[in-house]
């Protein structure tokens, strides 16, 4: 009896420890291409709540997890704005979500988001992931991190996950505009060539 208790407790410890380590190594990778993404109701910088469902005319969405404080996110600000200008009218608006905990990263507080959006003239919603509930469901790990969704009968289907393009340093040296290529493909009913890409970014501050 004692022996079995020992074994059981040893097993429990092993399980606990491994659960802990595995969790840290992203056991929950979030959405894969083809999954149906959740809608949300998050506060925009103008104080209004925004959901994907609010966009009746949209054919889909360019969801960008981004923030004020990450140099990579900052490097892409103008390009994200350009994406919204180019694709909102075509049915793919940019929906930016700030996933960091503003108490850990004060530069990402709501007032700071408002100031940044005003200074840069953002025309897209810039939403606060209050309580940090949405980004883990998507599986975002960093800023910037893009999810392109397409409205389908099943729901908002994830069509692309990853980077905006292949050169964060120099927009003029970009060879592959991953997001534009993906949205163009969706608009013309073609298959997206690169459905998943990676880029360096800042870890999300919890």
């Amino acid at each position, binding site marked *: 009896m004692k022996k079995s208790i020992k074994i059981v407790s040893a097993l429990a410890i092993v399980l606990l420890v491994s659960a802990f380590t595995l969790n*840290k*190594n992203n056991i929950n990778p979030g959405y894969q291409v083809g999954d149906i993404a959740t809608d949300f109701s998050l506060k925009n910088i103008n104080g209004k709540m925004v959901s994907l469902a609010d966009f009746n005319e949209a054919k889909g969405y360019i969801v960008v997890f981004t923030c004020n404080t990450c*140099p990579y996110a900052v490097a892409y600000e103008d390009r994200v704005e350009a994406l919204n200008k180019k694709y909102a009218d075509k049915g793919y608006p940019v929906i930016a979500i700030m996933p960091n905990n503003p108490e850990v990263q004060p530069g990402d507080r709501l007032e700071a988001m408002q100031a940044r959006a005003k200074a840069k003239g953002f025309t897209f919603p810039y939403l606060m992931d209050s309580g940090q509930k949405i980004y883990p469901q998507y599986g975002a790990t960093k800023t910037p991190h893009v999810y392109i969704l397409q409205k389908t009968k099943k729901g908002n289907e994830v069509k692309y996950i990853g980077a905006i393009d*292949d050169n*964060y340093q*120099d927009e003029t040296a970009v060879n592959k505009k*991953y997001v534009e290529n993906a949205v163009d493909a969706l608009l013309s009913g073609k298959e997206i060539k690169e459905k998943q890409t990676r880029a360096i970014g*800042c*870890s*999300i501050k919890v």
Partner: protein
Amino acid sequence: MLNTLVLVMVMYNFIFMNLRVLFIVFVLVVSCKQEDKIKAVSSNIEKEQVVEPKLNVEEYNFTAFEKFLNREDDKIYVINFWATWCAPCIKELPHFEKINETYKNKSVEVLLVSLDFPKQYEKKLIPFIEKHQLKSKVVALNDPDSNAWIPKVSEEWSGALPATVIYNKDKRAFYEQSFSYEELKAEVDKFIK
């Protein structure tokens, strides 16, 4: 024009991959509208390091950098990807320094790979290294096409910083996370027989 330059840069890197000191050469290219500074990574022979006493950080593109991930000697390598603007990276940096110091006699070598933007090397990276008197080797990885090389570091890596690889010639582990000293030590200990 640009493509040719990139090709030349890549060739240079291949040819001089074994030389240890890399210097930055600026090539001015006049494009149709504006002058663009294109950086080429070139090499110099080792003795020139003596002439240049100022702290210098070696800069690599991924092709040239890859050798650091594939050493086949008897050492254990702890490769940490970081940047001066990455708060969680800065927080865990002392743990890597401590590992480098305490495990020296156990053949553990720490390499700190900075992903700071090149324009920040002089302003941020080098002053940071000097201020904190980093003892571990620091190199700069500058290769904007990260989609091409992130999977070569690890298929598990989403690209978020900080990230760490620990390996020896027999095994390899990857971590997209921050470490406490105890956590890091426990992972390094797994490699020590």
